[in-house]
């Protein structure tokens, strides 16, 4: 019974946790400029993330160690520094973007400039991490994040043409502005397959004391959670395609996004949009701050757990405290939040190989996973994701320059 309640919680966490500033912004930009056409990229991102989460969760449940721990141990400290620096840098940028997302939502609600919200938001996030436990962070944001379901309701109310939407899940080339199309495709993939998500998931499995008995829970959570969460991101794209695209509205500023739900849901839509942006970005802020602290703690062998009192894992607690403050700085300085989001999503896509390629080795290591090593389906999926990640590494920069303007 406890296990299945964890499945429900995992799915609910994914529903609220999947939508955040990066996925909302990139899906809305894609829908506004190319209609349903980029839906296949979202599907690819969602499926890739589901595989990666299932694998890192399985690795943690069977070995009792996190992916980061095993990465350092199997490949050595010198190699480990590469993913450490890459994931750390891009996740810090994403953390800034999330703090920016909460601040922008508060600006739209109150009229007070977003930069003034950066420190209060950061302080509340820090306080929750300092005083709360992993369960509080996980369950609190999961339940509040259910407000994101409003995106699915809004999409349904707009009565999309299901055949056109279905056809968009088959990859196709754009009839105009190819550079922008591929730039948005890279951004959407960066927002979907974010390394902090599966690193956080792997650490969460250890925090929740998963064992080999939880492999079923892991599989169902990774699959259903991403499926339901994915539906919400696809909904964001559908809404933008039906509300913004016919009016030729391109998303140049975050402020434009709040109009998305007003067309199908009126005043309630406006309030729900602000609530969704604020809550989901805040939840993601907590998750990334923890994921970064986990990365450092596991990388350098410090004691770590969100369930311990801060004085029992001082370096871990100090890490998320300092990182939150550092991430708040660009927002405090008034940096363009949408530009920050787009750049961080593209760089995230470029950073994927350093965490995806080593996973291929670890998931086939019989000493670590015994009879739970990857089967052929998982291996084929992981090879495809690894190839995709290498393509993204070399494509990200040219597309950022050509289509990011």
């Amino acid at each position, binding site marked *: 019974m406890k296990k299945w309640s964890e499945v429900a919680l995992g799915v609910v966490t994914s529903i609220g946790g999947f939508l955040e500033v990066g996925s909302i912004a990139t899906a809305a930009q894609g829908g506004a400029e190319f209609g349903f056409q980029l839906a296949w990229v979202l599907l690819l991102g969602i499926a890739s993330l589901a595989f990666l989460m299932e694998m890192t969760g399985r690795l943690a449940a069977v070995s009792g160690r996190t992916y980061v721990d095993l990465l350092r141990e199997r490949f050595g400290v010198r190699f480990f520094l590469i993913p450490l620096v890459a994931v750390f840098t891009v996740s810090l940028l994403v953390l800034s973007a999330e703090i920016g997302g909460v601040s922008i939502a508060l600006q739209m609600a109150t*009229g007070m400039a977003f930069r003034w919200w950066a420190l209060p938001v950061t302080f509340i996030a820090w306080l929750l991490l300092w005083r709360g436990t992993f369960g509080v962070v996980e369950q609190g944001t999961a339940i509040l994040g259910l407000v994101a379901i409003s995106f699915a309701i809004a999409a349904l109310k707009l009565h999309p043409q299901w055949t056109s939407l279905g056809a968009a899940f088959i990859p196709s080339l754009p009839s105009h502005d190819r550079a922008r199309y591929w730039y948005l495709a890279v951004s959407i993939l960066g927002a979907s397959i974010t390394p902090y998500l599966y690193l956080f998931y792997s650490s969460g499995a250890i925090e929740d004391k998963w064992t080999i008995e939880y492999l079923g829970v892991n599989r169902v959570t990774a699959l259903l959670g991403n499926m339901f969460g994915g539906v919400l991101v696809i909904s964001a794209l559908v809404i933008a395609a039906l509300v913004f695209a016919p009016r*030729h*509205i391109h998303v*140049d500023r975050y402020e434009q996004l709040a*109009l998305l739900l007003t067309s199908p849901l009126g005043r309630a839509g*406006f309030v729900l949009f602000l609530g969704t942006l604020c809550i989901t970005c805040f939840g993601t802020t907590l998750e990334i701050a923890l994921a970064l602290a986990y990365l450092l703690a596991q990388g350098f062998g410090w004691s770590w757990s969100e369930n311990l009192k801060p004085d029992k894992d001082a370096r871990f607690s100090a890490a998320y405290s300092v990182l939150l403050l550092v991430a708040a700085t660009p927002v405090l300085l008034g940096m363009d939040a949408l530009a920050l989001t787009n750049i961080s999503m593209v760089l995230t896509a470029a950073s994927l190989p350093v965490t995806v390629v080593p996973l291929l080795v670890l998931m086939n290591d019989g000493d670590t996973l015994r009879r739970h090593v990857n089967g052929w389906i998982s291996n084929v999926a992981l090879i495809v994701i690894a190839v995709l990640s290498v393509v993204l590494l070399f494509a990200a*920069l040219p597309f950022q320059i*050509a289509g990011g303007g």
Partner: protein
Amino acid sequence: MPFTLPDSCRIKGHSVLTSLCVALALVGCAGEVDLAKALDTAASWQSTARMTAEARRSGAITRTYAVQIDTEAKQALLELRHEVASAEHETTVGRRATASLDSLEQSIHALDAELRR
């Protein structure tokens, strides 16, 4: 000639070089499409201002929020006027750009009027 695999360093070197060449070529092309992009941006802000005015009229959004869109639209207009003025273009294209910016300005005026109500 037998097929031989290049060593890993060459693969890396070639890929990075190709990637950089593509990036530089794309930067070179970027200047030519600036005016078309400015027209797109103007049309987008014109629709945003119109949609905001409609949403405000129906009570779907707060005045506080509508003011923010109004400010952003004015900022966009200012930047676009500067961009169009400094770009080299034919007379017909220039006229089209000016007309597009004038339409945006009218939509902003309509939003201003809605906000004064």
